[in-house]
């Protein structure tokens, strides 16, 4: 049970309306209280997409709907959404108000379904779960209620080299656009065809329709998103390859790609294995050329660079970054803080994944969504040398208190704009390096 939370690092279930916003030309329709959309917009910032933010239709529950139910209002809003907005997919998400009063949302969306509209509904009452969890609920609802309508044209597992990739919770992972684009580039480099499903480099709803055709699914996540691939396994018999943290930099990207190739071979993908191997080598060479150039700076720069790091983020980022920073920059991970409200059954694995970054040292791991309490723990800890704190906007003040460098990479943050930067892959590792050391150098005035 999670109790009090200070400094929220994620939002509630209805925050997964951003999962809809991430699909090109899709619109979330909020059947919720009036402030829900604003809260979500304010949490993520610069996240309106095609028809999110102030554009999203909303029933704006009032006292009247709480007392008499809001289905009539919902019907009217949906009907007029079709007149006002030009969209390819409509996903009705519900807030606490609709959840508690018990509105029968399906009965309303069914009316539009009968007219052949591409409409989906999903319960996302805020008290139900977090956006990390309900991201899966939204994706699964779209699969059950929309993708299912195109199954006759898309036989299960009919394309040997097609995979569906699930790696980021859009917007919650600030680098989702760049990361998905880079995953796509890497997997295409190996010879796969890839459905990334979100962002401008996906094929929108048409791409979603082909989900059943994939030979298998790729999940890059410690726990969030797993219900999606499990659902697809049940539904289409697609097995899934799981890599439980973000592959950042040389070692882990190569490990990810090689393990993926092994998995593909076992599942009868028909790739040009030699070409795939060459692709990895070329990418690695380009990566290590940079690391080689940089090593002198890392080893010789005399004016103070960070020598240890604390990260406040979700499990996938903490595990991916600790490995990368230790082995590929020499920054030693000290206490690490996982703030994604990791479910009980995954905690041991998450902790093990982070600790496994090193067999030479013990990395203390704290898992708790109450990030304010975790900050207090860190306030009481001192290490020698310059520290680096990587986290959300909340952590900037802490970094200042502790005289640490600070890098903003997590929600919520007013201190950084992320557009299409990627942190995964070889190029992502290089970008992390640029960000950390440019930050350090920018302090010399």
């Amino acid at each position, binding site marked *: 049970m999670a*109790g*009090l*939370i*200070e*400094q*929220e690092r994620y*939002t*509630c279930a*209805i*925050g997964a309306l951003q999962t809809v916003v991430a699909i090109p030309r899709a619109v979330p329709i909020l059947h919720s209280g*009036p*402030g*829900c*959309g*604003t*809260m*979500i*917009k*304010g*949490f993520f910032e610069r996240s*309106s997409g*095609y028809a999110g*933010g*102030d*554009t*999203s*239709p*909303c029933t*704006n*529950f*009032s*006292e009247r709907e*709480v007392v008499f139910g809001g289905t009539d209002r919902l019907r*009217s*809003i949906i009907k*007029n959404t079709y*007149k*006002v*907005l*030009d*969209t390819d997919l409509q996903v009705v998400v519900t*807030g*606490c*108000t609709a959840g*508690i*009063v018990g509105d029968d949302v399906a009965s309303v969306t069914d009316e539009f379904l009968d007219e052949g509209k591409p409409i989906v509904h999903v319960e996302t*009452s*805020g*008290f*139900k779960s*977090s*956006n990390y969890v309900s991201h899966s609920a939204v994706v699964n609802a779209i699969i059950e209620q929309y993708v299912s309508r195109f199954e006759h044209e898309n036989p299960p597992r009919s394309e040997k080299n097609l995979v569906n990739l699930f790696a980021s919770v859009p917007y919650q992972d600030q680098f989702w656009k760049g990361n998905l684009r880079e995953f796509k580039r890497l997997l295409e480099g190996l010879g796969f065809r890839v459905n990334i499903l979100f962002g401008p480099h996906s094929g929108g709803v048409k791409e979603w329709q082909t989900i059943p055709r994939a030979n298998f699914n790729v999940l890059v996540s410690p726990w969030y998103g797993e219900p999606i691939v499990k659902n697809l396994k049940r539904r289409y018999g697609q097995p899934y390859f799981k890599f439980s943290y973000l592959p950042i930099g040389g070692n882990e990207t190569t490990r990810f790609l090689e393990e993926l190739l092994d998995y593909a071979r076992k599942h009868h993908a028909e790739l040009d294995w030699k070409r795939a191997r060459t692709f990895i080598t070329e990418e690695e060479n380009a990566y290590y050329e940079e690391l080689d150039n940089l090593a002198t700076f890392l080893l010789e720069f005399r004016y103070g660079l960070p020598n240890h790091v604390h990260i406040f983020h979700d499990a996938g980022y903490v595990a991916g970054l600790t490995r990368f920073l230790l082995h590929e920059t020499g920054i030693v991970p000290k206490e690490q803080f996982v703030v994604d409200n990791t479910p009980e059954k995954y905690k041991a694995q998450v902790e093990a994944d982070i600790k496994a970054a090193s067999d030479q040292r013990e990395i203390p791991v704290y898992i708790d*969504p109450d990030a*304010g*309490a975790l900050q*207090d723990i860190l306030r009481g800890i001192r290490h020698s040398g310059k520290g680096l704190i990587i986290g959300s906007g*909340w952590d900037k*003040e*802490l970094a200042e208190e502790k005289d640490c460098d600070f890098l903003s990479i997590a929600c919520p943050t*007013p201190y950084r704009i992320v557009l299409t930067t990627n942190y995964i892959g070889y190029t992502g590792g290089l970008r992390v390096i640029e960000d950390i050391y440019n930050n350090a150098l920018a302090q010399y005035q």
Partner: protein
Amino acid sequence: MSKVNLEIPEVEIREIRLGSITGFQGTAGELVGACGGCSGRLKDKNRSFSQCLGCGTSNAACTLTLIQDAAIISHGPVGCSTCLHEFAFTYRVNAHLRQIEHPTQRKIFSTNLEEKDTIYGGGKKLEAAIREVYRRADPKAIFVITTCAAGIIGDDVETITNAAEAELGIPVVAVFCEGFRSKIWTSGFDAGYHGIARKIIKPPREKRNIINVINFWGSDVFREWFAEFGYEPNYITPFSTVDTLSYSSEAALTVQACSTLGSYLGAALEQVYGVPEIRNSPPYGIAQTDRWFRELGKILGKEQEAEAFLQRKKEEYMPKIEALRERLKGKTAYVTAGASHGQSLLALLSELGMKPQGAAIFHHDPVYDNESPDADTLAHTVADYGDVPNYNVCNKQEFELVNVLNRIHPDILLARHGGMTLWGAKLGIPSLLIGDEHFGMGYEGLVAYGERIADAIENDEFVKNLRKHAVNPYTKWWMEQDPYTFLGRNF
């Protein structure tokens, strides 16, 4: 009967207390006429299509989060406070404007209500949360803001906070601001101020030479102004402390940056603690600036000083204002903003020789809590500068704004709410949002604001380019309809 009642835990929402509305289409003059002596009998109109509004809980938080030494607990699911980090940012970046060198971390908590709490109640969780926040943050006061979920399941927040207050010995204040209660998110301001008025403000010990300024976090213009009269501003509530709030009752008078914002607290300070309030709406445009300073002088017994002050300001700024009028002559504008501030902007535009072509104002209060006609900003604007066509009361409904802007295509869009400038820019209209609510006040404000407007109009390369590449999710059908197609009818 007074609109202020500190004996009850929950202040009435604006729709009921002031008769405020969120739907109107006509001219500004027609709206003023419809309100004349109606004392809240305006007829509201609903929309059969609507987009996301704001809600009271974040506006209540807006009045509480920036109090230096208080802590905030949102009693609800984790999502109901996830935008409050924005106030933490504001506090940090604007602290220097109020002479705070080391802004401290904001203390913002959520009781994190979950499904089982909606069945068994969240009271126990709230009790535990208050104790933990007291231990962890050592605040001088704790504010508990409520949410839809907490409101519907019926947690007894008032009893719990009163018990905690007795136990801990600091004010623990229940602030009732469930989103579904009101379509007017400024009801959240009233909720926050009601909490402060009933639990924080104490009776005066003595009168002091301070003037309460109910505002957000704008620049410190009042310090220089009040110094001329021998007074200092006491800013409420951002950057105040629980202590300075407690003794706001000792001020000589209260002024407001925006009558919509401070309506309730200004009236409460006057009616309960005898602090007179400047009735006149804030000093935007020459006519209103003169009225405002004269009322200030009258209350302070310094009428001659006020006249001398105005004379000096005129001499200094009128030549610059004349030059700006020449530069901006005949330019058209459209305004979208909260009620009183938006109405003040219309005055400011007219004062600069521009022609307001319309406005989308988030709601309309036919009367404020002080029930004085002098506080009616829109009435002043219409009387001083003439009628404004296309005056739409519209609670941040982007689809109407897009449609209207596309028709009117003004030379500039002035907005004062995040997200609203985007559509001006997408349509190639220079768009300006000035976050500092004090920026346009007084004679110097007219010049400063006018220069920003002229700059925005004259530097339009960016919006022209954006227009060429703008993505538009609105249907062709919609762009051809009357903008108020969905207002007041079941279309």
